[in-house]
């Protein structure tokens, strides 16, 4: 059934091998950004080309794929990517976190705890955590090489001086295995603790800058902070208006013309599971 014009999982075998080699080196050096050659994908940047290339290099017919965009399985972006892999990689798809073997995500980590053997693939727009502080690539590479992260500490401390706290709510930088500062991609800092010693493998793909980095299972991932300003996650006074969860990341929704507000889970699978399965709610 395979003919010359058809590449399983879209990428040709040589491109897959190159990405696979980069993934293995990324796993061997947790948090370090491995450059890879990569080919142009048939999608505009911002659609998650880096994540798609990683997924294409790892996925097989035995996999069950879940794709989320800001926690939701049903956005245009998530649906397109899921259909793409159902077609080119002949994989089963799911919206259920617990059924998935590979989860490609944009901007969230599922609320349902991940398990051994699962792979979480992050779409990364800007892989370099120091980029806003140091635009030159040769410089940031040197700072990582020397583990010279004073510039990041200063920046966070300035934020405390100005706002009384570290104001960064998304893409909050982490230290991986005590060696590399890493961008967790634009997930809310609420999700950062889920990265720490997760039983799942985390792979991060940046399409525009062609970088892959990884966090192996059970690897320490520490959100940067200070003794007098410890890291804290967002909290809400409300619970989810649909499932009543007090533990999930909530999105604010305006529900009528009077501007009435509701808070609902950002993770649609988690919220739906809690509503349909009473035992999941307690």
């Amino acid at each position: 059934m395979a003919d010359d014009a058809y590449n399983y999982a879209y990428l040709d075998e040589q491109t897959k091998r190159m990405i696979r080699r980069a993934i293995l080196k990324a796993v061997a050096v947790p948090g370090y950004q491995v450059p890879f050659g990569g080919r142009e994908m048939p999608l505009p940047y911002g659609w998650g080309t880096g994540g798609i290339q990683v997924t294409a290099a790892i996925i097989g017919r035995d996999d069950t794929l879940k794709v989320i965009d800001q926690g939701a399985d049903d956005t245009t972006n998530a649906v397109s990517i899921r259909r793409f892999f159902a077609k080119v990689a002949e994989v089963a798809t799911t919206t259920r976190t617990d059924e998935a073997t590979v989860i490609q995500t944009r901007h969230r980590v599922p609320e349902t705890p991940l398990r051994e053997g699962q792979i979480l693939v992050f779409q990364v727009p800007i892989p370099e955590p120091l980029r806003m502080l140091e635009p030159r690539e040769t410089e940031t590479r040197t700072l990582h090489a020397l583990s010279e992260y004073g510039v990041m500490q200063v920046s966070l401390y300035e934020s405390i001086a100005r706002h009384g706290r570290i104001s960064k709510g998304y893409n909050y930088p982490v230290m991986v295995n005590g060696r590399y500062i890493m961008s967790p991609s634009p997930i809310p800092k609420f999700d950062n603790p889920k990265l720490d010693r997760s039983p799942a493998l985390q792979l991060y793909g940046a399409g525009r800058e062609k970088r892959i980095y990884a966090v192996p299972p059970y690897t320490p991932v520490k959100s940067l902070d200070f003794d007098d300003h410890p890291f804290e996650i967002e909290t809400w006074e409300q619970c989810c208006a649909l499932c009543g969860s007090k533990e999930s990341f909530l999105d604010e929704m305006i529900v009528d013309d009077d501007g009435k507000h509701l808070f609902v889970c950002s993770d649609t699978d988690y919220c739906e599971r809690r509503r349909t399965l009473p035992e999941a709610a307690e």
Partner: protein
Amino acid sequence: MSNGHMTDLRTLAPGLADPAHDAQQLFRAVLDATSRPGRIVSLPAAPAGPGTPSAAATAYLLTLADRDTPVWLADAFDRPEVRDFLRFHAGAPIVTKRAEAVFAVLASATPQPFEGFNLGSDAYPDRSATLIVEVPDLRGGPTRQWHGPGIDGRAAVAVAGLAEDFWQDWAANHTLFPCGVDIVFTARTELCALPRSVAVEV
């Protein structure tokens, strides 16, 4: 080919039966092993290869080696049928200088196993070599405690057939982190990975 030797396609051992799907399955097994060091992973679709090195070592190379990745072979494996196999099925150049290798195949008794291979640089630690070390068995050797990324606490691993100073050399390699070589131990159709990030108690 070189040395006046001609590849005989009639005797060349077959490569992957179903290249795209077999390579994907093999890669996932390798990825699983690399992200969970010490765990012994069985390779589902490993072809027998040329007889030596093991099916696992050959499958690793068929999955990841190509014309961009020079391969170095220790004396025990530097034989015409192995070279032909890797050139024909992977397209990988065979090199005689350790420093040029992206992948290297060593025997458990190969002297100075870490000497001379590319360790990567502080700026580009990913450029280091990966050593495939053939051992008689992944089990039954002296038990050592491994710890580091990918391991929940500690892993007791008992790779057989390694010299005592192998682990002292490994300790030296580990202290080079983020530089250093990565290792994959192979025996028959099984494989167990030891990335540079993992410390082994001597």
